[in-house]
């Protein structure tokens, strides 16, 4: 009996999220008395599947088919479902990235089984497995009982840090050829467009955030200036995107981007829980707000109480003065 871990990759280079999935799955498999296997799908699977033994995978299934080149949610979900049946796997796990959740949802729909998304912990010792999963993008947790012979789940992204297993397993590559019809490849990537290279909101070391308190699209100019001085980027709240002041790609939060900079300067942002879940991974937070009671102020490590329209330019000026 096995626990199968879906490993994601991009034409041969394995996604870090998949190593998290293996790291989470390994002790779980042991507690459940299952052997851990992995599956890697599509072109480049043999390359991406190398070295998964170090993470405790006994067998690494590499699935290939002429119709499986790039990612396609239905083709991947169907492949996983077929592999589950042919190997008699009793559990399935992936990392809860957009792709991971989509592939497991596809497999679950095809197998008509429940699927528990974004778990933080799983207890497999009872008749029913119990899990704690994430709701509201991480603001709330839900304890659930899962009634099913075959358990399908994802682990919340970043819930664990990837690390190799204490004792490596064989990690033998075994190839698998699913039977796929044309209808499962209605949804495969037809084209890819790369828009940005370099620093993005999710990877920037400094983010200067603005909320409703900024007041208009034009009033973001001083925030841009400060961000430029710090080699950072500008972020914003949903109030800002809803007003059309900034594009949605700048939005931080539950339905925007999750940031993890060295410092997040959050100005004119009240700190609603849905904004906070996107910002809380920042190593330091400086809130600038006229309201000393604002949630962003009480949750931040540092704060300036005042009008951002005065405070931000003053900071930029002071930086320039010191740079000389």
């Amino acid at each position, binding site marked *: 009996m096995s626990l199968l871990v879906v490993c994601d990759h991009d034409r041969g280079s394995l996604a870090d999220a998949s190593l998290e999935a293996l790291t989470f799955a390994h002790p779980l498999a042991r507690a459940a008395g299952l052997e851990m296997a992995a599956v890697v799908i599509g072109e480049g699977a043999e390359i991406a599947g190398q070295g998964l033994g170090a993470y405790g995978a006994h067998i690494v299934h590499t699935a290939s088919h002429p119709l499986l080149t790039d990612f396609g949610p239905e083709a991947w979900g169907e492949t996983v479902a077929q592999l589950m049946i042919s190997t008699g796997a009793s559990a399935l796990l992936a990392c*809860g990235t957009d792709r991971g959740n989509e592939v497991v*949802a596809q497999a679950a729909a095809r197998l008509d089984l*429940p699927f528990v998304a974004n778990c933080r912990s799983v207890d497999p010792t009872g008749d029913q497995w119990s899990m704690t999963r994430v709701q509201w993008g991480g*603001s709330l947790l839900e304890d659930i009982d899962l009634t099913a012979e075959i358990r399908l789940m994802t682990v919340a992204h970043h819930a664990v840090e990837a690390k190799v297993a204490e004792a490596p397993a064989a990690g033998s590559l075994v190839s698998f050829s699913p039977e796929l019809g044309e209808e499962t490849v209605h949804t495969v990537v037809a084209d890819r467009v790369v828009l940005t290279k370099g620093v993005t909101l*999710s990877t920037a070391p400094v983010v200067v955030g603005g909320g409703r308190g900024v007041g208009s699209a034009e009033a973001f100019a001083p925030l841009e200036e400060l961000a430029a001085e710090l080699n950072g980027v500008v972020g914003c709240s949903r109030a800002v995107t809803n007003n059309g002041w900034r594009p949605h790609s700048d939005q931080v939060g539950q339905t925007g981007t999750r940031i993890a900079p060295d410092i997040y300067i959050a100005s004119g942002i*009240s700190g609603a829980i849905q904004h906070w879940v996107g910002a809380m991974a920042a190593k330091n937070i400086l809130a600038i707000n006229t309201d000393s009671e604002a949630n962003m102020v009480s949750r931040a490590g540092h704060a300036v109480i005042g009008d951002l329209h005065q405070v931000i330019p003053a900071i930029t000026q002071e*930086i320039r003065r010191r740079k000389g």
Partner: protein
Amino acid sequence: MRILVCVKRVPAPGARINVTADGQTVDAAHLGFTTSPHEECAVEEAVQLTEAHGGEVTVMTLGPVEAEEQLRYAASVGAHNFVLIPISEVDWDPQRTATALFEAIVAIEETDGAFDLVLFGNESADSGGFQVGVRVANHLGRPIVNGIKGIDLDGENVEGFASARREIDGGFEVYQVPLPAVFGVKEGINLPRYPTMKGRLASKKAVVVTDQRTVEVGGQLRLRLHRPVEQITETVILGTGPEAAPAVVDLLEELGVLS
């Protein structure tokens, strides 16, 4: 173009989320309710598509009878037909929800013909199961892609196909999907409009059809909700107004972000 959008009513918490004493749901005593954001954008997308190509938008929700409020909101921003699947529990599990939505869709399609497009949110804002749309599409035997941030019906498309853009790190992937199709869309696909005065009046007259469904529970049983433990930090106030700038820059220096 006939488009169906499935939306969920969710509470709109502010600074923190409180849970009811029985742990079953979010304590919404002092909160308003809203349409889950991805789905608000799905409604806007559907309305824009029918404005460009003609046709009608139907909005469906499964929830308490109060979810009629979210259907009327959809009416105020241009949707045409409204279906409420009433439930008496606080929420249904994802399998149960998907089956009910599927059955209600089939009931409409049996008399009026198939929807060209069915739109879902990428995930619901509250429970975030990442699956209801996928399950419904699978029951319907139609293709689905999630994470969609652009739908295009003209351009270089072959008749009967839609191209859909999905966000990836620093760019997007394009999918060519035959209609009828299902998409899970994400906030950012468009900027939802605000209701106009005329829209508000229309929403008062909108007819909401109720479709009661009896469906077995699925395998995922909610025991309780709780808040994650939070690290409480003392806030260091660096100062008031622009005079605080030197203290801020000291901090930036200390953190090594001043290059």
